[in-house]
């Protein structure tokens, strides 16, 4: 068990002239985080945001160019991966193709000169937990994707390390298995209580698995918070759009006299929202964010927020139907009742509760009127 501490950690790459593409992709700036003992932390963000780099720095596969990484108080920046007492599950699984499943799992223990009986006991134990005892004699190439994934987990498990690192471990599985393994990994974590870092680009995985989620973008932490808070109180437009499926809709709105207005929509704000925005002219314009699940079909012209536009796409999903409506320039997604009685081309009027909207600064994309709660602030290390 361990507490992992990252303090002002950064990874900068020497710019390489002549290289195509974004030279700064994968870099990390000013990363601060302290885990609780046994916490399950998910690093999430779009590709190139630095989440994998961060994990690889914890593993010691990459060197941090600034800051400190501490495991249980000890600065490991100069410690080789093999001496950090961590185990890692790779996206590709990285099983040793020339070793049987048993030896794949036993390899780390054998290197540490663990007594044979002990090795055997621990491999058997891990295999039993993961239900792969019948695979022990096989070579990796004789396994299915899901089986390989379990072996990769088993190899990490056997080590009984201080920290588990998982780098997109489920992204090579098909959708069904992914859901299954998601639950399995969560269960394992409950059972073992080992501090775990989990990297994914899939916000659903992040939301379902993480006790705390670190949302990253362009090498910088956007927000560190619980799944619930990320959903309810995103600190900026990026986090708001990244968390939740389908994504939050954003409409550019003019603010005047307590009402947000734009082409095809309007919304009268509640008094506390108005006071939060203040009466300064700073917000003559802002972004209005509204989640698809917070839009309802309506006939009446009651107060609150409403928008209307022509229906362009209808996607019946079974329990609900997704509709895409053209509001001004923007295509707004709405999650509506299953039996939606509209045709493509019809004009649809949708209502929403002002309490459920999010407002963002037009320039900085930061959430407006968010009461500053230290627990959800970006700098969670203080």
């Amino acid at each position, binding site marked *: 068990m361990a507490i992992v501490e990252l303090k002002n950690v950064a990874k900068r790459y020497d710019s390489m002239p002549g290289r195509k593409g974004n030279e700064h992709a*994968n870099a990390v700036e000013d990363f601060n985080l302290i885990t609780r003992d046994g916490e399950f932390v998910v690093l999430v963000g779009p590709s190139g945001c630095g989440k994998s*780099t961060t994990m690889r720095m914890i593993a010691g*596969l990459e*060197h941090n160019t600034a800051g400190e990484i501490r495991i249980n108080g000890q600065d490991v920046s100069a410690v080789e991966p093999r001496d950090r007492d961590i185990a890692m599950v790779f996206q590709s699984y990285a099983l040793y193709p020339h070793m049987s499943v048993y030896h794949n799992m036993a390899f780390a223990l054998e290197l540490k000169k663990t007594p044979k009986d002990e090795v055997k006991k621990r491999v058997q134990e891990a295999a039993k937990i993961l239900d792969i005892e019948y695979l022990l004699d096989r070579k990796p190439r004789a396994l299915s994707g899901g089986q390989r994934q379990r072996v990769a987990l088993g190899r990490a498990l056997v080590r009984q390390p201080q920290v588990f690192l998982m780098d997109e471990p489920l992204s090579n599985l098909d959708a069904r298995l992914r859901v299954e393994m998601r639950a399995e990994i969560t269960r394992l974590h409950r059972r073992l209580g080992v501090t775990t870092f989990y990297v994914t680009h899939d916000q659903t995985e992040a939301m379902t698995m993480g006790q705390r989620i670190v949302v990253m973008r362009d090498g910088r932490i956007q927000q560190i918070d619980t799944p619930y808070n990320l959903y309810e109180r995103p600190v900026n437009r990026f986090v708001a759009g990244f968390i939740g499926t389908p994504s939050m809709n954003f409409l550019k709105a003019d603010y005047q006299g307590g009402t947000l207005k734009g082409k095809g929509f309007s919304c009268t704000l509640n008094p506390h929202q108005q006071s939060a925005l203040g009466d300064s002219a700073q917000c003559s314009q802002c972004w209005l964010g509204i989640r698809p699940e917070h839009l309802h079909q309506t006939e009446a012209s009651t107060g609150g927020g409403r928008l209307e536009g022509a229906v362009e796409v209808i996607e019946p999903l079974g329990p609900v139907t997704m509709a895409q409506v053209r509001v001004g320039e923007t295509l707004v997604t709405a999650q509506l009742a299953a039996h939606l009685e509209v045709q493509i081309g019809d004009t649809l009027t949708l209502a929403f509760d002002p309490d459920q909207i999010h407002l963002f600064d037009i320039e900085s994309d930061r959430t407006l009127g968010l009461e500053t709660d230290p627990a959800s602030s970006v700098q969670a290390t203080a």
Partner: protein
Amino acid sequence: MSAPPTNASPKRRAPTKRLMAPSVLFLLVWMIVPLAMTLYYSLQDYNLMMPDMRGFAGGLSYELLFTDPVFWDALLNTLLLVVTCLLITVVAGLALALLFNRTFVGRGIARTLAISPFFVMPVVTGLIWKYMLLDPVYGLFSWVMRSMGFEPIEWLSSYPLLSVVMMISWEWTPFALLILLTGLQSLPEDQLEAVRLDGANRWQEFRHIVLPHLGQVLYVVVMLESIFFLTSFAEIYATTSGGPGTATTNLPYYIYLGAFFQYDIGLSSAAAIGAVVLANICAIFLIRFVAGNLNAGSQR
């Protein structure tokens, strides 16, 4: 130059210098230092028969070289040899590669038979051709000519350079075949399918898909073969010994004769520098290609 960070190798400090040093040193000692010495000798007046008369000669060796008609013969022979062998092996190799790129009964065996000449030691190639095939009286070719009612040809004395060209082409057509065939087989099937769906006929398919795909493979074959043909030696050594006269003396053989029979180190070194320059003209293009490949490959 190096791979993108996320999937590059560990950025730990590795003893790369120490690991590469033995190989680098080895090549320095056996290739680069001698090359520099060749350059040095080429500026010396140095004959092994008169070791005491050694001294700096400036461009004298080169002057002698350029006024030696045998050198020009050798240069001409070298170029003739390279060009004709290239033409024959590339054209024949491409035709054979297309022929062997079909599925047919026993393809593997037929292809293996066809490429076997490449694995024959050049000296043995020379002997086989000199005696058993090209001998004016007892050779197989002569027998074929006679049985068809023609006068046998005295290949090695009447057409010496052509004979050498035949030997080298026999050896190297398989090389072109092998590499072009590999190139053909790396052509993605979906490209062919796409162009067929677009209604291309066989010729259009070859012209617009296969040939462009083979472009760089052909390039590699031409560059590599040029370098190897430039340095042909054993075939000539085993058959004509550069003769009759200077008819089959190429640059390597000229240097060999100059150094080992006339003991003229200065002159031979100057000629050797000539050979290096010639080879480098081909090599530069190829190395660029390999280096470019390295960068593309490092994207993993």
